């Protein structure tokens, strides 16, 4: 029997350097002669720039240069997800504003100085004259009559309209239904808030014409691609390094003006240039997530069969279209309208709207939380409308178990699923049936308990490149990896993806160890440098384990095959007689004759005695393009109590049963679920961007923007089921976003369930105590729940 490192909850190999402060982030890298860049940012959400006077700033001690949008000859920052059949407009996004600013924080000028403080002093001294224009933040309002026009070439502020489904069929389903429920759902803007703010530093060698850019990137190869396009440098002259990156949650996918500006300034001035975002800048300029106004309807029969779901979605894009922004409320959203249910009719019209907010883009879950929320919210409303228990409605509509492919009305082919098993397991853990009795007893004492149950599936492990092309993603979605073994039998696994806190250095090493028998501590996963690593499209969309993991598994299998042939040759045995176990190759029937994988690796390097036709060396590479997405699933349940006197919500229990196929490292899976749940619950309960009517960000610091805190949460009760993906070499599915996707509606529905006897039907997220309390007052004034 071989022992398996796969499935073992070993400690994260990243953690010693992370928790002792020895990790080296972009800002930790010091270069001699570096210039510090400060950006003069617009204080207005929408204004014409009438003039910029930088004379005073330029005269200040230590200031090397001040540049404005007129000086910077970079190509515009591109949008890289061009949704087809949507009449997409891609307004120019200059690295520094030219003539007009479109959100608070839009860059207007840059100051380069020998010291960060002096750069900031000089930035404050740049005098910009503005003519303020009316601003619009709400996407539905921005798409309406009379809204201020943000880009001259984006008529009505509508950047795209995406509606790929059959409207007539959807209308027919709704007409035939017994009951139709509807709601206007606000998916509020969220701040991704990675622990490390963004940073960028560039150095240019004029003799070799090579640019090195260190930056906080989830996808350095995509950054290289875009920086090459924006600067005009050949791609092979651009090296992008993502050193340690302290989280991203999607916010470090896009290429921002700041990365382009340090590159441009480093070339222009012949000196290295560094920029590190402050937290205040991070909240102003780093992408925000969500920002949907959704008009949703669900059709059902009186016996609880869901017959259709449809929505019109106004998705706020902010002042410019960020790198992947158009793909989020469309491909990653509307295609998820079936969820784990047998819904035969879906319709989604998603309207991408320019606003005077910070640009939006992918934030953990990216489009899928917004879809899961609307489905789950509407199912609870259907249950209420037909007088059926919401669990019963879900149970009735779950897709039966399948092992290899299930095509749904939204067009996706789910890989595998066994929703009912996870659903019943979670209900059992929660004690659902008993809970309803406890709830009734509590209500009789004036206590308000509630329960929310979410069944979900989601699409991740992005994804087949052919699909990427068909949906307008301006790149592939494959990954590549090289497993390189040194003569002494130590392993470097070079990957194109770029993990930034997920623990992939551990889980990917476990995959290799499991395939080929090197001890996990002898395997280093190398990532984040476009010169050192093979091409890859990056770490996002819960894709690194499914896609890079598959590439590594295949590369390791190739190596194992080479090792088997070489071992047979060295032991003068037939390849067919070679047996493998735990990193050792032995000859069938003579177990004392064996070659360890390390011995084979050494002999492959020495190449003294190779079989006919075998090349020397011990290294294999694999490009891997997944044949399909992966579809993890599960059921989450929350139990809350609402203090009716204050509106404060106490999250008492949280149960999560998730199925991501076989778990490589259960501790890391649990960590991903914990973090995801926390972020999703925070959307329901406390996080939310607030702008005033002029487009000023009122939640610009953590004093006002409510980050979740540990004491808001109970100990999570986790369970699992294991349904392998049929198309993946080791059967795994992604788990980075499931917690975020499932938890928001779970907690929201629990709170609304608690408030039902008080006549509360709807509250916009986040469910702050003030809003809950006001809703209770209004509900009671209307005579309560009945």
């Amino acid at each position, binding site marked *: 029997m071989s022992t398996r490192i796969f499935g073992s909850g070993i400690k994260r190999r990243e953690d010693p350097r992370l928790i002792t402060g020895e990790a080296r982030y972009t800002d930790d890298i010091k270069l001699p002669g570096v210039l510090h860049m400060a950006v003069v940012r617009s204080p207005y959400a929408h204004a014409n720039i009438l003039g910029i006077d930088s004379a005073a700033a330029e005269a200040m001690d230590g200031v090397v240069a001040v540049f404005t949008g007129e000086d910077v000859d970079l190509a515009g920052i591109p949008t890289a997800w061009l949704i087809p059949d949507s009449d997409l407009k891609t307004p120019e996004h200059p690295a520094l504003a030219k003539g007009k600013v479109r959100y608070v924080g839009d860059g207007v000028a840059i100051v380069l100085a020998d010291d*960060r*403080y002096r750069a*900031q*002093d000089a930035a*404050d001294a740049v005098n910009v004259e503005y003519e303020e224009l009316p601003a619009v933040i709400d996407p539905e309002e921005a798409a309406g009559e009379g809204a201020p026009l943000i880009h001259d070439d984006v008529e009505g502020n509508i950047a795209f309209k995406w509606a790929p489904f059959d409207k007539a069929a959807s209308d027919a389903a709704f007409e035939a239904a017994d009951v139709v429920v509807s709601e206007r759902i606000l998916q509020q803007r969220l701040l991704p808030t990675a622990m490390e703010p963004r940073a960028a530093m560039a150095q240019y060698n004029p003799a070799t014409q090579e640019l090195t850019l260190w930056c906080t990137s989830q996808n350095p190869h995509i950054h290289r691609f875009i920086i090459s396009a924006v600067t005009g440098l050949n791609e092979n002259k651009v090296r992008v390094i993502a050193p340690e990156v302290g989280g991203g949650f999607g916010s470090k996918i896009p290429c921002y003006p700041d990365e382009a500006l340090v590159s441009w300034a480093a070339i222009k001035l012949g000196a290295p240039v560094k920029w590190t975002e*402050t*937290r*205040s800048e991070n909240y102003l300029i780093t992408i925000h997530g969500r920002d949907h106004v959704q008009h949703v309807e669900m059709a059902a029969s009186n016996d609880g069969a869901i017959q259709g779901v449809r929505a019109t979605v106004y998705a706020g894009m902010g002042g410019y279209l960020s790198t992947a922004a158009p793909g989020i409320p469309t491909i990653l959203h509307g295609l998820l309208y079936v969820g784990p249910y047998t819904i035969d009719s879906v319709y989604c019209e998603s309207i991408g709207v320019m606003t005077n907010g910070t640009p939006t883009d992918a934030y953990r879950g990216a489009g899928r939380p917004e879809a899961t929320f609307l489905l789950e919210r509407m199912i609870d409303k259907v249950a209420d409308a037909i007088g059926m228990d919401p669990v019963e409605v879900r149970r009735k509509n779950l897709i039966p178990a399948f092992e290899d492919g299930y095509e749904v009305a939204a067009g996706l082919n789910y890989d595998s699923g066994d929703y009912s098993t996870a659903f019943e397991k979670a209900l059992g853990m929660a004690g659902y049936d008993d809970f309803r009795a406890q709830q009734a007893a509590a209500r009789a004492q004036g206590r308000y308990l509630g329960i929310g149950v979410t069944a979900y599936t989601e699409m991740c492990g992005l994804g087949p490149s052919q699909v990427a092309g068909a949906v307008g993603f301006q790149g592939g979605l494959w990954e590549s990896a090289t497993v390189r073994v040194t003569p002494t039998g130590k392993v470097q696994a070079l990957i194109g993806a770029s993990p930034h806190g997920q623990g992939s250095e551990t889980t990917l090493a476990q995959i290799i160890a499991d395939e080929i028998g090197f001890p996990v501590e002898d395997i280093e996963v190398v990532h984040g440098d476009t010169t050192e690593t093979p091409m890859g499209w990056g770490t996002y969309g819960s894709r690194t384990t499914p896609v890079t993991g598959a590439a590594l598994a295949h590369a390791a299998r190739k190596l194992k095959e080479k090792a088997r042939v070489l071992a047979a040759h060295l032991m003068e045995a037939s390849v067919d007689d070679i047996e493998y176990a735990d990193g050792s190759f032995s000859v069938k029937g003579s177990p004392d004759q064996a070659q360890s994988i390390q011995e084979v690796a050494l002999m492959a390097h020495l190449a003294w005695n190779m079989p006919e036709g075998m090349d020397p060396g011990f290294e294999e590479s694999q490009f891997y393009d997944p044949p399909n997405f992966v579809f993890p699933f599960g059921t989450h349940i929350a139990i809350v109590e609402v203090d009716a*006197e*204050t509106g404060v919500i106490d999250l008492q229990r949280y149960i999560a049963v998730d199925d991501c196929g076989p778990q490589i490292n259960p501790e890391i899976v649990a960590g991903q679920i914990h973090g995801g749940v926390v972020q999703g619950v925070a959307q329901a309960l*406390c996080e939310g961007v*607030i702008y*005033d009517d002029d487009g000023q960000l*009122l939640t610009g*610091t*953590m*004093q*006002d*923007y*409510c*980050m979740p*805190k540990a004491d*808001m949460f109970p100990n999570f009760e986790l369970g699992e089921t294991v349904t392998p993906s049929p198309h993946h070499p080791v059967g795994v599915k992604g788990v980075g976003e499931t917690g975020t996707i499932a938890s928001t509606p779970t907690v929201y529905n629990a709170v609304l369930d608690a408030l039902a006897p008080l006549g509360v039907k709807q509250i916009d997220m986040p469910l*702050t*105590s*003030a809003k809950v*309390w*006001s809703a209770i007052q209004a509900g009671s004034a209307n005579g309560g729940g009945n």
Partner: protein
Amino acid sequence: MWPNKFDYARAGSVDEALSLISDDGKFLAGGHSLLPVMKLRLDAPEQLVDIGRIPELSGISANGGLTIGATTTHDEIATSDAVQSMCSALASACGQVGDQGVRNFGTIGGNIAHADPASDPPTVLVACGATINIQGADGARSVSAQDFFVDLFETDLEDGELITGLSLPNCSDCQCAYVKFPHPASRYAIVGVAVCLKMDGGTCAQADVAVGGATVKAVKCAGAEAALAGTSLDDAALDAAAEAVKADIAEWLAGDIAYPEAYRQQMAGVFLKRAVAEATG
């Protein structure tokens, strides 16, 4: 994150501090209110005079009442047996300021000089009748906490004056409590209520009540005090006090976009009841 340029000097004594301070200068103690404001460039003093190591400004002494030096940290107050015994509500409030790191550095003098209306200690100081001791170039003076806090981030302190400490009456025969409804983002008080009750058997002989967080400054609440005094603190008295406290703070209300004034006013009533329950529990 990047403060403006400033000069720095460290004073060894109160007299030296007063001689060093310039017109555009500020005293620096723990720095936990001042430095964040400077880093955000919301304030840009040209000079900081560090009073953090002046021995005479630090420490707690108990002699009939309590005397607390200006640079005494929140943690020292929260964990002081003397404070616990003579004014447990102040120990409680100081123990709820920020997190442990803030409490290890932040000082009571800096806290009240900053006069953040949502901070915890001022509410207790107003309820319990503290006196603020101040020294300036023209000598020393004292002012009641109630008069010291004037408005939002505004105190009775004149330019160049230094808070040297504060005095509190011995309240060991009272039942007092500070109860806070923390803002979920900042953990400052949405509303904080301090009560100090003198009980005579089952009857409340005297009640002192102050509210912060919901208001632009810590406000002494005479109406609520009157509603509680002379009662057995029964439900009717508590309901009356909860109504009265809303009137007491009506002219001083403060709020933010997420927790508006009206909500905070209501919560002052709810948390007054909870504070009384905690004090008498």
